[in-house]
């Protein structure tokens, strides 16, 4: 099952430049939250702070509290590797391991975690590919074809399957459909809708119609600040803040 997220006073920097300022929000379990805002507003940094990816960049710094289910993400006794295992992430550009087979791509995370029971692996690979709505398209070539031989949309679903295989509690998606055609985008969006039964999903998107279609909640970031966070229907019909209104109606700047 998905878990709730509670962020308190989250601040982030690249060197001396502060890119997130005092972000606080609570996200319910098993809901999809979209993060929108103009380029450079901090939305990608925000989701990268949720699974401690931000700190992998030299000079990057984070302050604040992030609670994901029972994980105190920045707690002193919490290992970043453990956080990233329990919080899956899918990126803008599909990044399957190019030379690995489809099967090995999905099983990679599990193998790294010491899984070697063949039967269990087979089951998890099948279940993950089914959840990612890719199983029917690849079931006959699982070990014959490499990840990079798939189409862009299939590769992205493969990456989603890979993220799901380790049974994360939270799934982060950073513009997962921005490089895909409308059919593949539709499949990813449908998949997000299905996934929220089992996971909490946070998705960064530049496409506001996509946010409106897939998200239960939407938050609007501007210059490192969280301007507004509300139900998606409220944000896209009657936003409270004029800056949100200006952004979503295209009158920004």
């Amino acid at each position, binding site marked *: 099952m998905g878990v709730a997220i509670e962020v308190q006073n989250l601040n982030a920097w690249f060197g001396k430049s502060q890119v997130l300022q005092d972000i606080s929000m609570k996200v319910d379990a098993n809901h999809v939250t979209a993060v929108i805002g103009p380029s450079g507003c901090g939305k990608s940094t925000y989701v990268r702070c949720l699974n401690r990816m931000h700190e992998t960049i030299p000079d990057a710094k984070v302050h604040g509290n992030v609670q994901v289910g029972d994980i105190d993400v920045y707690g002193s006794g919490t290992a970043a590797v453990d956080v990233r295992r329990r919080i899956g992430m899918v990126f803008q550009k599909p990044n399957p391991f190019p030379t690995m087979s489809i099967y090995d791509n999905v099983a990679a995370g599990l193998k790294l975690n010491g899984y070697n029971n063949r039967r269990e692996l087979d089951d998890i690979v099948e279940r993950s590919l089914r959840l990612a709505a890719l199983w029917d398209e690849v079931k006959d070539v699982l070990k014959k074809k490499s990840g990079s031989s798939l189409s862009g949309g299939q590769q992205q679903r493969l990456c989603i399957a890979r993220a799901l295989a380790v049974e994360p509690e939270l799934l982060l998606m950073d513009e997962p459909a921005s490089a895909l055609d409308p059919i593949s985008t539709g499949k990813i969006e449908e998949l997000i809708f299905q996934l929220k039964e089992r996971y909490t999903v946070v998705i960064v998107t530049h496409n506001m119609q996509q946010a409106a279609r897939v998200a239960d909640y939407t938050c609007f970031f501007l210059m490192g600040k969280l301007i507004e966070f509300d139900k998606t229907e409220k944000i*896209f*019909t009657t936003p409270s803040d004029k800056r*949100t209104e200006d952004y979503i*109606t295209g*009158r920004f700047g």
Partner: protein
Amino acid sequence: MRTRFQQGLDDLKANLLEMGGLAESVIEAAAEGYTRRDAAACQIVFGREKAINDAERHIDGIAVDLLAMQQPMASDLRFILAVLKINADLERVGDQAVNIAQRALDLISGPVLDIPVDVPRMTTAVSTMVRRALESFISANTEVAEAVLQMDNVVDRMKDEAFVTLVKQMEKDPVNIRFYLDALLVTRNLERIADHATNIAEDVIFWVRGDDVRHGQGLVKAAELEREIDDRHSH
């Protein structure tokens, strides 16, 4: 800025205002047909009603295109939804004016009677409401829209009073019941127009503030507004 989208919104607004002007003109013409027993004025109503219907289709077309091609959000989305609803209300105003003109023609075919109902005053009230509702749309002014909501109660009361008066008149002069019934239907049509003006005002409030204020509003300023109607009526 989204120039093409803004042009579309401006186009929508201009067309709706033109249609509003037509709707206002048919209310006046229908009332004149009734008050002055003027069959030519009634014919004007029938002619313009067709133009209103054409305008309704045209405005719907622009709105649907904007929804499909520009995916409007927030106040833009509310604006287009409001225009679609106001458009339908204005078309219904045209229909009500036609009904009034038909009753007027029937009255003209009969004897000249002393009908003790102040239809001109009621018409002034109703056309004030429509005008004010359209003004609130032009200027995105919710205070004006709220005033329209309150005026609706004044018109409702006029209609109720007319009903009592006309029923008494029918009892007194049963030979001419048909013509008193015409007058009664005219007051009912006018009251319906006031309802459409109310809807328009509610849609303006929805567009501007995002609030749904349909079905029930305060009466605070009713007396003040009644004075305004009296003033306009006497000029």
